[in-house]
């Protein structure tokens, strides 16, 4: 099995954005102690507002969750070599030949990658992360009542869910797969 790194592939780009730009840079790299600190310190108002723009309902993290759900639905086709048949030189083939070519290479790709078995767990991990975000929001917005320990524990829970999804996405191909 070969992976075409560097060839344009929307699924690889989306995987990279979720895996690197969101989960790693915006959740896993954050220190839970600092998040708890930010929650209660008036001097950190700017940082807190920026953080809240991410976690608030309808905020950036909710958008990323929607993207991750869509990615889980579309990833099997997204990494398939079948997409190469409808662009480039192979468009010169008859409709019937292109359909046949796609069917065979897509079938081999499914068999060799077992990628279909991975989409369900990824969708499940996204839902778990969404629930953890919702739970964390409940703690965070109890602004006066929430103790620092609760905020910290809530964020650590969010990170644990993010880590699980991060690991699953990290095991996906980085480009179109050739059987």
């Amino acid at each position, binding site marked *: *099995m*070969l*992976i*075409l*790194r*560097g*060839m*344009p*592939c*929307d699924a*690889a*780009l989306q995987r*990279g*954005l979720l*895996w*690197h*730009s969101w989960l*790693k840079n915006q959740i896993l790299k954050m220190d839970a102690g600092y998040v708890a600190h930010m929650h209660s310190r008036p001097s950190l108002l700017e940082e807190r507002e920026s953080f809240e723009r991410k976690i608030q309902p309808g905020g950036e993290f909710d958008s990323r969750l929607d993207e991750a759900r869509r990615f889980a639905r579309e990833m099997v086709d997204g990494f398939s*070599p079948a997409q*190469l*048949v409808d662009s*480039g*030189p*192979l468009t*010169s*083939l*008859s409709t*019937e*030949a292109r359909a*046949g*070519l796609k*069917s*065979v*290479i897509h079938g*081999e790709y499914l068999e060799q990658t077992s990628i279909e078995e991975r989409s369900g767990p990824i969708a499940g991990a996204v839902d778990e992360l969404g629930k953890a975000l919702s739970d964390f929001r409940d703690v965070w917005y109890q602004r006066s009542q929430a103790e620092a320990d609760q905020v910290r524990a809530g964020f650590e829970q969010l990170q644990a869910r993010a880590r699980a999804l991060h690991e699953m996405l*990290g095991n996906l*191909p*980085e*480009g179109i*797969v*050739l*059987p």
Partner: protein
Amino acid sequence: MRIYGKIDERLKDVVRFDSAFIEGNYLLVVHPNTKEWINQDLGKKLQDVNCRGVLLVKGVPRAGLTGEEFAKLKKQYGNRFHASACAVGTAQENTKLSGDLETRFRNFFRHARQSDDKLDWSILDPQWPDNLVSAYLLAKVMMTETKEANLIESQVKDWQSIWEGAKKEHELLTGIPLSQDRLDKSTAGDVAEQIGQYLQTVAVRVA
């Protein structure tokens, strides 16, 4: 030209950035932390006529730009703008520079050092040998015992130009001609193996 970097250590094995700014042409390599940098600062950097190119490198392909966004920026800034097609992560990440990609980055920076004006981004991101990849797929299907294999083999007129193009690309890229002169069910295995070996050595990674 000189090479300046606004990026962490991920390229340290392939380039040594210049530290002191000196008048003259230069390449700027940037890890943009946000899309805002691309929207607001990229244009400012390129207003400097001495800046002969801005190269974006991140841990995601094309620095997280969609194909549409990348094409739009290329149209806007022309050949002085580029974003690495491949993700380049830090030393702790599995996308860290290695293998052929590392060689290409090293060669590109060597070229940039020696160039005084134009930058050849194709050293970094070579064009895909489309005919070779297409011929590989055709061969893989012809290797199977399926009706699709028979159908494709029978429609040779439709893909003959792909096969001729693939033979040329293979010889051009490897210096060696493919050992098979024709592609059909009997030669498909050999053809797929030879092309596969070449693909493994370029922008392809074996999983």
